[in-house]
């Protein structure tokens, strides 16, 4: 009996204690007509050796691609120590730290995590993590609406340069509470939104403006002006950032005159594997005045009965297990283990290492673009400053090129046509510090070949 330690003798003794004759009697309060005899259609049990072989075969099918896709999930080098430690069973097989005296390790670590995230974003506080980047932005929007006392509106302004996948998730999450999302199209030349443009479009009251930096195309925008504009309009400014870039880029807390009010996004780049999309690590930071509207777990410092410093889940009165339907969110778990990994990652990299990773990713992306645009017909689509993603405009549709390059074991980027009508030739490319000059050269060569192959076939 897999994972069940009971011997026949045990079962016998236990049944006797309970005063019944068979285990089935334990289910005698269930209406008999509901009981089933067996679970049809479930495969027979495998042993560990068998399932291992099956899974190894399946994993192998998916291996070995040189990946230049970013678009919200980034391949960075993950130091061996990160998961050696985060994978320790003490972190892995614990529950939410409800008993702080038995969970100081997790709690102290989360306090350190909060400190690092707050500092990176330039905010006063951070929660202990949310599910992922997209849902974190959704929570930030709801939080901003609750927080903005100066405005009764449930309108929120979002540029289409925010990751389109995020926009979908936000829509699914916030729309039920009759939040209205006002989408602002980007300038076709610059790939960005400007204050002038939105100011024209948005003429109603709104609760918050979402500002992605870099935006989905990898471009830096004028976040200072946007933040100030939001504040002028009595709205909150929500910064959506890739925290890796904050090693180099100005922290949201310092955007514009007063700084963004909330910063959120995806911390997967901090030591978390791509893993087909999850588990990742949503983060959410804010200014002091909004803390009590923050969803999710928060760890605070306190003292024990002897006056020694310790850590504990705090501000629980915001949460569903106490406030129930009036809670700041329904969220109950966080992505604790991912926060553990990110904290270890950040400690190993330190300010200098993180800066180097960000800089190397930026430089390599620039190098790739430089080389790619030497190919005939390949151009950078929008002019501006890119961070570590860039939009290449190909002389032909991107999708077939992607399929062609797959044959060389290269995933060359994301075809933007699916998300932006009319942009069928655009390819969003990401290069991180993991790519060598050789990798980049290989990319260029294969791209060249693919452009040729596909051009001929046309």
């Amino acid at each position: 009996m897999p994972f069940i330690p009971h011997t026949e003798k045990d079962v016998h003794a236990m049944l006797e204690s309970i005063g019944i004759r068979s285990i089935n009697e334990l289910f005698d309060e269930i209406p008999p007509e509901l009981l089933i005899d067996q679970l049809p259609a479930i495969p027979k049990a495998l042993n560990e050796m068998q399932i291992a072989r099956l899974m190894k075969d399946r994993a192998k099918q998916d291996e070995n691609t040189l990946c230049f896709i970013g678009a919200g999930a980034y391949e960075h080098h993950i130091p061996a120590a990160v998961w050696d430690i985060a994978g320790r069973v003490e972190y892995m097989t614990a529950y939410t730290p409800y008993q702080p005296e038995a969970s100081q390790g997790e709690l102290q670590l989360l306090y350190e995590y909060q400190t690092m995230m707050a500092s990176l974003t330039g905010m006063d506080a951070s929660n202990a993590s949310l599910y992922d980047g997209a849902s974190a932005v959704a929570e930030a929007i709801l939080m901003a609406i609750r927080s903005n006392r100066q405005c009764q509106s449930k309108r929120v302004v979002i540029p289409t340069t925010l990751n389109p996948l995020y926009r979908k998730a936000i829509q699914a999450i916030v729309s039920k509470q009759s939040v209205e999302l006002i989408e602002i199209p980007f300038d076709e030349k610059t790939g960005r939104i400007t204050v002038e443009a939105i100011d024209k479009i948005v003429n109603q009251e709104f609760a918050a403006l979402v500002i992605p930096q870099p935006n989905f195309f990898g471009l830096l925008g004028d976040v200072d002006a946007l933040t100030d504009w939001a504040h002028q309009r009595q709205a909150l400014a929500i910064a959506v950032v890739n925290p890796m870039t904050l090693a180099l880029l100005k922290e949201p807390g310092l955007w514009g005159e007063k700084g963004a009010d909330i910063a959120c996004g995806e911390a997967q780049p901090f030591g978390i594997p791509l893993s087909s999309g999850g588990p990742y690590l949503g983060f959410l930071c804010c200014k002091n005045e909004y803390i009590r509207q923050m969803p999710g777990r928060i760890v605070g410092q306190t003292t024990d009965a002897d006056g020694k410093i310790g850590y504990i889940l705090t501000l629980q009165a915001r949460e569903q297990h106490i406030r129930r339907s009036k809670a700041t969110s329904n969220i109950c778990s966080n992505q604790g283990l991912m926060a553990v990994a990110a904290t270890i990652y950040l400690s190993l990299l330190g300010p200098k290492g993180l800066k180097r990773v960000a800089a190397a990713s930026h430089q390599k992306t620039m190098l790739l673009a430089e080389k790619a645009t030497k190919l005939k017909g390949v151009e950078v689509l929008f002019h501006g400053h890119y961070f570590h993603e860039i939009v290449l405009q190909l002389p032909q549709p991107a999708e077939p090129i992607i399929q062609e390059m797959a044959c060389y074991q290269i995933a060359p980027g994301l075809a933007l046509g699916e998300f932006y009508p009319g942009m069928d030739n655009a390819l969003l490319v990401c290069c991180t510090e993991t790519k060598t000059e050789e990798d980049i050269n290989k990319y260029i060569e294969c791209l060249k070949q693919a452009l040729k192959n596909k051009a001929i076939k046309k």
Partner: protein
Amino acid sequence: MSELIFEQSQPNRSAPTQMPVDFLSDRAIDLPESSLRTTKPLLPEVSELQVVRHYTNLSKQLFSVDTHFYPLGSCTMKYNPHIMHQLASLPGFLNRHPLSSEEHGQGFLACLFELQEILKAVTGMAGVSLTPMAGAQGEFAGISMIRQYHQSRHDDGRTEIIVPDAAHGTNPASASMCGYTIKEIPTLESGDLDLDALKKAVGPQTAGIMLTNPSTLGVFERRIKEVAEIVHNAGGLLYYDGANLNAILGKVRPGDMNFDVMHINLHKTFGTPHGGGGPGAGPVAVNKRLLPFLPVPYVEKVDEDYRWVTDKTATQSIGQLSAFMGNAGILLRAYVYTRLLGAEGMTRVAEFACLNSNYMKKRFEQLGFKIDLPERRASHEFIISMKDQADAYHVTAMDYAKRLLDYGYHAPTVYFPLIVPECMLIEPTETETKETLDEFIDTMAKIKQEAMTNPELVQKAPHTTSLKRLDAVKAARELNLVYTPVV
């Protein structure tokens, strides 16, 4: 507690083998000055050994399933087989980008598809989407589907979700996030729902009801079919909170109980580790009428190929709940678990979880603990109330919880469900031995003795952990959420 990592920091110390080295010297960073950071973020400057030692030692200040008996009711802290982690961590799975092509991911998609099929089989439902990232998100997805269902029928007056008073906090909170108002109905002395109250509560405003069965009181809702009838007759739908699915796995299926939609907490029923707070995963299962509304993406099989179903084809879907497809790594683990158990193994989960629980309940009863609903069969968990002891010796459920830590046990859930005073919700799980249960029971008996003879010992517990009892009030009052370096 340990020094913070920041307190070990020294300017210019680092872990150089972790730094990218190439490219940097010969290429400038061409970004506008105004967009650049000018302050150094508060990250520690420490050596690799310092990091390793710090976080390894922190891990030692944690109770966990692999090190302690952890009878945390409702949370189901059973053994998480190591092989799950090993296989989900195969490079072919770990390194796959979420936006990779379907061709470059057939192995992964096959696992998800089969997991969907298995979950359909165990729930008796018609369709499954694995994408919700936790139980609470599963609830949100489920209630969203109920909402979308009513909307699709232009049945617009349904604004209320009914929730029993014993429900988990996420239930009302999730319904509320879906824009519903909540109507709470009471539980009878017998542990069953108050059907008269329910009958009164339902009406044209009823969108649905959320139930756990067995309930958070650890007993099976015996008149579940009547409940379903009442709600369905009023035009509402039934949501099943799958947190307790492990109690009935292979015995009775939510679909057969006439639930319309449900979530499954994979970590509770299918043994995935919960990582000190998460990640979990909360797949949703629906019956036929809600199929069109399932959150995307999910996996379909076309001939021999596995493909994503997205909002392109599933146009009535409630949409997507995360940037990509949810907590993939957790889903792989759960898949491995289901394959290791097989059909028979799943039924045994319910059987032995309930055996352990009923055994403990009986023994506690014999030891004079006050059992909530003593005349009922316990399911996989049961409740004892310390109200009598709190009254007599001022020793509370929380004091018991803390004292248990001294004896090397994680405490059961305390003060939940909210409707039983001074309660402890005890869930031993099927993976624990009788010896472990017996030792735990003996320890509880010992604490009971202590409570009578030396209550202070219990009230001031814990004594053997690295810290004494922590001050929660101070934490909330003198809010300190981030470290500030002393300058």
